[in-house]
């Protein structure tokens, strides 16, 4: 923008001044207390750096989705579909089984292979084209279906198919988790995808136990009929019938309920759920969760209750029977109630979980970091003190060593720090404790550009040059070095950002901004001050 001489055009000087002042203005919101900031009129509320979890306290959880469970569920539904399809096509088979990673169909008559294959191949769906899922797979389908001569058909999920499933499950989970953690959309929770199969949840101001409770369980709700042909203990002893499942009864710990595998209605058909009271007894009874079905759920529920009056049905949540009431009459209208041994917290939580929908697969925590609010406040305080002490020490050293020029470099340093903080505020980058460390470190590193220039000026002076020439040569010759040394430092900081995670990134960001703005201030701000000083005071000797 400018030639590297002491000459400044009016415009150059104005732009430099404007940028410096603007940076300082954009820094101010971060320096005043929050209460003062909030009392400002809206137009004056310039962006403020959000504080990281390590400074304000909060919880960061990294969840991993259970890919194996997703795959298993997928294979099971393929198995069910395959059985139904083959029976519709009247193709006899000796078994449709899940073997490892695939569903294996053994046909009774290998000559029916073509018919079976034609039908089964309709299961394979194209995987939505994307850069990453395009690789491998059977022509971009999610299932690889192949038949062998001896009448065995294998159906196997393709890697892109699995990946697409996982991706889909992750984005659905993120939606569900968001509704659970932040039902009103008021907290500053961050919920984002991390890597291929992970979700990062960061919630300021909440303890980990509370966040975990809100994320909760899968919350897969189903209504299934109870199998009354044998008692649970008989089933346990004599083997569970293939169409039944033995599920633990949460009303009677240790006991089991034998239910039909067929699902009458599931939580997917719920439209609403809220906390209420058991209204059967007339007055105020036990706590309960009221729910409403959509029309499809309502119709199915009405039909099954009408056909099974007098029989019990089980309300199953995450493979546990919450309660198994007896159907007294048809339940039309799609409204119902879940009762059990609930506390107030329980019903509120269950209602929220049901409202937000079920997670497509279970999530497990693989990394957890939490900071209490008091530690965060301490860290802010220590960061402030370290910044003030660091700034004073660096200023003292620079002024003691370079006099007036040292003072110039400190003004440039203030602008430098202001630019870093203004950029962080404008980009809405989160300020973390390592980020503060990065700012303090920048104070030490940023004056390096000035040191290079000043030492060069001294050298030029010593070799007998005049004041002006020495200053010019000092700036001029130091720039090559400054650019080289700043760029290498910047490269290291960028790599730190790419490979770092969490708060380390905050450090890399402030460090990078610090390096770039130091390049700017040494080229413009310091030079403007020196050139103005020379013009205004016309010094006879140079004390540097």
């Amino acid at each position, binding site marked *: 923008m*400018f*030639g590297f*001489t*002491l*000459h400044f055009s009016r415009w150059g000087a104005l732009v430099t001044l404007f940028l410096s002042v603007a940076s300082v203005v954009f820094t101010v919101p971060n320096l005043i207390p929050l209460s003062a900031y909030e009392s400002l009129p809206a137009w004056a509320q310039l962006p403020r750096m959000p504080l990281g979890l390590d400074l304000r306290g909060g919880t960061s959880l990294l969840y991993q989705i259970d890919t194996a469970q997703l795959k298993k569920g997928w294979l099971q539904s393929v198995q069910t579909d395959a059985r139904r399809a083959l029976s519709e096509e009247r193709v006899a088979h000796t078994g449709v089984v899940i073997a490892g990673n695939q569903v294996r169909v053994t046909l009774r008559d290998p000559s029916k292979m073509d018919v079976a294959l034609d039908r089964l191949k309709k299961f394979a769906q194209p995987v939505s084209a994307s850069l990453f899922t395009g690789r491998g797979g059977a022509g971009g389908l999610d299932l690889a279906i192949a038949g062998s001569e001896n009448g065995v058909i294998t159906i196997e999920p393709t890697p892109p198919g699995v990946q697409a499933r996982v991706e889909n499950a992750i984005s659905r989970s993120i939606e569900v988790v968001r509704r659970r953690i932040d039902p009103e959309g008021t907290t500053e929770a961050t919920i984002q995808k991390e890597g291929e199969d992970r979700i990062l949840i960061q919630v300021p101001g909440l303890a980990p136990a509370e966040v975990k409770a809100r994320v909760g369980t899968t919350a897969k709700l189903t209504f299934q009929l109870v199998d009354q042909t044998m008692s649970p203990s008989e089933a346990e002893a004599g083997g569970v019938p293939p169409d039944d499942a033995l599920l633990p009864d949460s009303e009677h710990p240790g006991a089991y309920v034998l239910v039909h595998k067929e699902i009458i209605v599931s939580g997917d058909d719920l439209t609403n759920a809220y906390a209420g009271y058991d209204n059967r007894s007339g007055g105020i009874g036990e706590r309960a969760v009221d729910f409403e079905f959509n029309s499809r759920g309502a119709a199915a529920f009405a039909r099954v209750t009408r056909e099974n009056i007098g029989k019990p049905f089980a309300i199953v949540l995450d493979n546990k029977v919450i309660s198994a009431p007896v159907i007294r009459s048809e339940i039309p209208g799609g409204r119902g109630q879940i009762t059990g041994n609930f506390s107030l917290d329980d019903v509120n939580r269950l209602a929220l979980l049901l409202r937000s929908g079920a997670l497509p697969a279970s999530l*497990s*925590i*693989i*990394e*957890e970091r*939490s*900071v*209490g609010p008091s*530690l965060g406040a301490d860290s802010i305080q220590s960061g402030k003190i*370290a*910044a003030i002490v660091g700034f004073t*020490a*660096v200023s003292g*050293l620079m*002024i*003691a*060593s370079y*006099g*007036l020029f040292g003072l110039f470099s400190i003004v440039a340093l203030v602008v430098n720090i202001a630019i870093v903080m203004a950029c962080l505020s404008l980009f809405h980058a989160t300020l973390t*404790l*390592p980020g*503060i*460390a990065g700012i*303090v470190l920048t*104070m*030490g590193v940023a004056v*390096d550009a000035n040191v*290079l220039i000043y*030492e060069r000026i*001294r*050298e*030029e002076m010593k070799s007998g*040059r005049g*004041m002006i*020439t020495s200053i*010019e040569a000092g700036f*001029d*010759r130091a720039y*090559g070095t400054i650019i*080289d*040394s*700043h760029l290498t*430092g910047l*490269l*290291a*900081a960028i*790599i*730190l950002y790419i*490979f*770092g*995670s969490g708060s380390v990134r905050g450090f890399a960001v402030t460090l990078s901004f610090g390096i770039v703005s130091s390049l700017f201030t040494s080229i413009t701000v310091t030079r403007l001050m020196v050139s103005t000083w020379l*013009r205004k005071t*016309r010094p006879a000797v140079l*004390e*540097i």
Partner: protein
Amino acid sequence: MMLKPLFRLPQKMNLRFVKYFKLCLGLSIFAIVATIVLLSTIGLNFGIDFKGGTLMQIETPVPADVGQLRSTLSRLGLGEIQLQTFGQPNEVLIRFPEQAGGPDAQKTAADKVLAAIPSGSKELRREQVGSTVSKELINSAIWALVFTNLVIFIYVWFRFEWQFALGAIVSMIHDVFFTIGVFALFRLDFDLTTVAALLTILGYSINDTVVIYDRIRENLRRYKRMPLGELLDLSVNETMSRTIMTVGTVFMALLALYFFGGEVIRGFTFAMLFGVLVGTYSSVFIAAPFLILIGVKRDWSGLEKAKAGAAGAKQAPLPARAAGPAEAAGMEDFDEDEAVADAANPGTQAAVSKAALASVSARKTSAPPRTPPRGKGHAKARGGRSKKRG
């Protein structure tokens, strides 16, 4: 009236760095070998980031009796449990390895610890890292170190010569090993922030190295006949005051962080303090003298011409000077000469008031006369360089 410097670091130090190169190289090779031995025997004291496990920072109502607490907690059967006070006598850091049995087992273990510590204690911080994550973190840390070295190697190669790039990489590898070695030797916690510190140290160390290399390159162009050893010494000496000042300011900032920045980043700051010293040492005693070992191209004029010919060359050529008595005369003569050329070049003086310029010119009249063609050449070269760098 003017704010005067209180002290000035000596401009010309006559230290003989090259003389000690073999000693330093021997020392560094020893350090690297020792680090490898340490790593393969006792290994690093990995924090939970790289090992997996749980870390809890607890505030106790009264100063904690760590010994007693340790014996209480070790009875919980959570594996190797580590305790240390953290900054204040009433703050304790508790670490235990990952428990078998998934996330629930980690939570149960943490609950057991919470139940066992003195009542009225407060949990300030908890970090729990699973083994899958910790393995990935190790991988990405190693990749980060490798990439940083590689990228900087390429950059220095591009901007200088391969010999310089090699010197830079040797000194960076030296820094990495030295710092890791100290962490292994003193059983300091090696975690993600240590790796962040390592990368920052690399950035700082290469910054130092590049400043010295820049000067070496400049001197290579200026003193074509000076023995390389002498030239390297001269370059390091010329930049010594800058090196000391910059180490000084960085150290000031780091000391402020170390003493006031709080316990949480103290490990990071310690690594940085140590690494800055190592990085400076390696730039001065390893990176620069290393060029003697592999030699360096002395004639930059051909390359410079070629580079200047290419569009957008970063460095304009200094004119090739005829060999002769003027060259043998040395630096002082050369600088005077160039200074006059600059002073006489009105193009570079535009912003300076006429009065100032007049005073400069007056002061300069005592300078020895120069031969017009050479002066002109310098003036052109300097002017051209200014423009191109802008």
